[in-house]
């Protein structure tokens, strides 16, 4: 078996990396306050929100893809509104699968962060507060360094899980080269075209990459668990 990759393969790889990076970035930005609220908030809505955040874990990607298509397409509430303002709707576009990926990988960012915040506990923050650190100061100088492990896990899992996204993209993005034809879809396409050599090369590459990433994550998790206060 040879591992030569075609330009189309490279295009899909770059597209996938772009999608995964952006998704991870967005998830860290919106996942952090959400996870914080889920860890420490005092509202009765918390269990419901936690269930909503976890929905993509258990919902068939086709259901998510279907609803997103209905929502983001030209007939949908979001897509239609965008069209009215002269903007392109989001179905079958990179922006569309980015939205899909963010929703789909949400639990993989929020849950490790929530876990890290809960494990950290309030004590270091209370200590810092009585020593004069403001909320922002506490986040930057206490939470961030002490939950480093949680952030690494959240980032890696978000990235990796977006890498493994298929059903949502298939329904919402189609398979448009350079725009929505990410690796998982390309592998499917190769398999269908009986282009097994290409399917193999890409699959094996992903398998190895996924394993290495997870090995690092769990190694890091163990190591960071040990320096926990």
């Amino acid at each position: 078996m040879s591992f030569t990759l075609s330009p189309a393969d490279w295009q899909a790889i770059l597209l996938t990396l772009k999608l995964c990076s952006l998704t991870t970035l967005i998830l860290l930005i919106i996942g952090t306050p959400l996870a914080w609220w889920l860890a420490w908030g005092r509202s009765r809505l918390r269990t419901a929100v936690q269930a909503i955040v976890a929905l993509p874990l258990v919902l068939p990607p086709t259901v998510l893809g279907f609803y997103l298509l209905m929502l983001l397409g030209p007939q949908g509430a979001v897509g239609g509104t965008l069209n009215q303002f002269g903007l392109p709707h989001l179905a079958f576009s990179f922006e569309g699968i980015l939205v899909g990926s963010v929703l789909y990988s949400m639990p993989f960012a929020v849950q490790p962060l929530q876990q890290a915040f809960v494990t950290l506990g309030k004590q270091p923050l209370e200590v810092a507060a009585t020593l004069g650190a403001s909320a922002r100061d506490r986040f930057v100088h206490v939470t961030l360094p002490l939950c480093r492990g949680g952030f690494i896990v959240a980032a890696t899992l978000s990235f990796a899980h977006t890498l493994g996204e298929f059903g949502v993209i298939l329904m919402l993005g189609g398979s448009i080269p350079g725009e929505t034809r990410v690796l998982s879809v390309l592998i499917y396409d190769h398999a269908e075209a009986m282009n097994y050599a290409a399917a193999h090369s890409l699959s094996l590459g992903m398998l190895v990459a996924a394993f290495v990433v997870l090995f690092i994550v769990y190694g890091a998790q163990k190591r960071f668990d040990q320096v926990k206060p």
Partner: protein
Amino acid sequence: MSLTLDFRLPREQFTLNANVSLQSRGVHALFGRSGCGKTSLLRAIAGLEPDCQGQISFNDHHWLNGKKSLPPEHRRLAMVFQQPGLLPHLGVRDNLLFGYKRTPPARRHMDPDDVIKMLDLSALLTLRTSQLSGGQAQRVALGRALLRSPELLLLDEPLAALDHAGKAEILPYLLRMIRHSRIPVLFVSHHLDEVVQFADQLILMEQGQIVSAGPLQSQLSRPEFARFGALSVLACRICHNEGAMLELALGQQRMKVPALPLNGTECRLRVQARDVSLSLNRLQDSSISNQLESRIEAISPAPHEAEVLIRLNVEGQPLQALITRNSQQRLQLEEGMRVFAQIKAVAIH
């Protein structure tokens, strides 16, 4: 200092009800059984209990007004928790300076070098927090709190996690720090022994209520404290502090005790009632050398039915003695009698 508390804080089994006004400087000891709400009270003062409602004001600043709460970082206090709570991602030096860096230079009244010297921290500065022993970590936590230059210091059983030897390691530092810094302190404990070494004022809590508050000496002779082991504190003047023995003056009378690491001219002797014996005449050929002439003020029953608690007046100060009923009858002790109180020199701390 003026700290006025008037707030409620709901807990599982009771509502903490704090209604007290602390006006003097010095050390206010908060004493009570496990679970009575001491930690909760301190946390409320520090602003760490969001459910707290009422009034907290400190030196004209409103820290709590109804539900409006000043965040902890804006209250000029520092707190030392039961566990040292060092930040594990920072080294010892950075932990020590964490609050210092966050205090405007104009308001700093403690100097890092002084604190490091006083608490003997210089050898620890480059270590990681995981390399510290329990006692060392508590010293760093104390130093860190001081370097915040607080106007009120809250200490929540800073010695509870330590064993006997660990306490012996840290006590001298704590005493020195409290005397040196002159910052008002609220000190929590459920060990009466510990409390009396520092306290000027004693606050007794029970089931979330403040039962009594007042100066140490008068509080100690209240019946509530008898069950924790009756105890007196004698305020003395230091006459000589040379060599191994320390000579103390109590009014006209003199005592000699093994030297203690004390500064200044005043000192406080903690005397447990069970360490005091009484005689009708001054004993001559006994190893007990400290005998204080005193008058019996009151005789009351003690927790054990075979014993009585005798309240003496020594140069105007209260001193308690716990003796057997048999001895009382044998010596025919009665209120108003003059007696000699023997205190073994080694029994004084």
